[in-house]
Structure formats: structure tokens, C-alpha cells
């Protein structure tokens, strides 16, 4: 059966670490990093990239447009 897998590309310097996207992710793929970016914010990173289905909920609610989601169809 065909399965869709997502890949996240996060612009860590744009991210302000607001965390609004965390609640939008149904699979808890993303987390805020303990390290900070150039502006001093705990930026977003994909902690569990294998769980991503490419729903793009995080990208929709991101106020600073720092998340790009690619979808890939894989056979399983």
C-alpha cells in the first residue's frame, strides 16, 4: 500500500520559538531545541522525522513561515 512520508525543512534562523506549531502536530514529530539560534530563541527541529506524514499542519500555523514540508510517496 502506498504510504506518504513527509520531510521537514526548517529555517532555524527565522524561527522565533513560539511553539504554536507543537500543538498542531498530531504525531509529536517536532520539538523546540535546547540550543538557541542567532536571535536567542530555542528554535524548532524535527526530533522524530520518521513519524512525519507530511500533513503540513505545523507549516499552516507557523506565523513566520519557517517550515517547508515535502511529501514523498513510498511503497510498503
Amino acid at each position, binding site marked *: 500500500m502506498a504510504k506518504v512520508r513527509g520531510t521537514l525543512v526548517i529555517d532555524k534562523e*527565522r524561527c*522565533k*520559538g*513560539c*511553539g*504554536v506549531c*507543537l*500543538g*498542531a502536530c498530531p504525531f509529536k514529530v517536532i520539538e523546540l531545541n535546547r540550543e538557541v539560534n542567532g536571535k536567542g*530563541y530555542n528554535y524548532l527541529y524535527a526530533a522524530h522525522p520518521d513519524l512525519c506524514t507530511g*500533513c*503540513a*499542519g505545523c507549516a*499552516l*500555523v*507557523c*506565523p*513566520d*513561515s519557517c517550515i517547508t514540508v515535502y511529501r514523498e510517496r513510498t511503497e510498503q
Partner: protein
Amino acid sequence: MLDVLMHFCPGCSHGTIHKLIAEVIDEMGMESNAIGITPVGCAVLAYNYIDIDWVQAAHGRACAVATAVKRLNPEKMVFTYQGDGDLAAIGAGETIHAANRGDNIVVIYVNNAVYGMTGGQMAPTTLLGMKTATTPQGRDAKLHGFPFKAGELISQLDGVCYFTRQSVHTPAAVRRAKKALRRAFDNSMEGKGLSFVEFVATCSSGWKLSPVEANRWMDENMMPFYPLSKE
């Protein structure tokens, strides 16, 4: 959208609404035909982020400027982008009369219940009991009056063809909001009258909450008073 960093605080709803407006204008292919009117408030710098023509109006006067721009350029798509301190307070008169005349513009109204740019003071839309910089004991109806439902008031007028209230705090709400914006812009180009799109938004800095807590607070307190439209 221009590839620049926004000045908004982390988690501000303005960023998401800007993105939706830019996407809808792009999908309609109206980049060179859209004219926006920016207000006074946090959204004043929208002209730095969305690559279309803009006019910056005096405080509250965006609807009056938009009326002139649309009447002189009827083939352009004209919209205003205003906050609640701009539209519901100092600009209430201009907005109501633009709506009553039924000018073919879109009014995008971002309601976060405080004056965000100046530090979270009480606005006409502040909820009863809500603590702000100028109502540290909470808003009291006897002293400060009642919260102002600008959307309901304007939706009663005959010149208004479309009124909707949306939010952008969940992916589903963002998708609905985008459809509403598209419908409003289409109405404006078809000459149906004034379209009024209200956004219930957060101001985490003004409310002194984290962005995630602000979204939760909005869900629990703002939504019962400012109920969202179904579509």
C-alpha cells in the same frame, strides 16, 4: 511575501494572516492589481512584507482611504487591514459609513482585544474582567462600558455582502480562514459590496502570556464571546 524577517512578537497571529492574504492574492494572480491600506498599529509595517501597492492611512481612516482608492481605480482589488484599536475605536465612524455605502472593498479586521503596539492597554473590544495595562483590576462594565462587537454591528448594514469571523490558531481554522478570504476578495471584484472578515487573534505580549497559553486563553475566553463563523 517578501523574504524578510517580520517584526512581530513570537506567535503573533498577524504573521499567519499576512501569509494567508499573500497566498490568496497570489492564487488570484492579482499581485499587480491589489492595493492594501495599512492601519496604525502593529500591522502598519505590512508594506514591508507583502509585495503589492500599499497606502498608509491615518489612525482609523483606512476605510475612508480605501473608498477613495476603489472609486478612482474600480478595476483594482482594494482591501484594508486593521486592528481593533484602529477599526473599532478611533475608526468606528469611517468603518460603519463605508459599510453603509457598500463600497466594493474588503475589510480585514484583526481583533485581539487590546492595543498591542502601545503595550496592551484596554481597547473597546476588551472582554469584561480582562486585565490589561490600563485595567489592572479587570474591565468593569460600570466604569468602562461593555465589549464592542464591531462585526455583528456592521453585518446588520445593507451595504455589507459578506461577514465572517475566523481565527488562525489551528490548521483547520487556517484552512477555513483562507477560504473566507478568497470569498471576500472575489466578492469585491464582482462588485457585490463590502466584505468584512474578522479574525479573533492573540496578542501574547499584550496579554502577558506565552504564545501557546495565549492560544488556549483565546479558545476559552474569546471564542464564547466572539463565536467563529461556520464557514
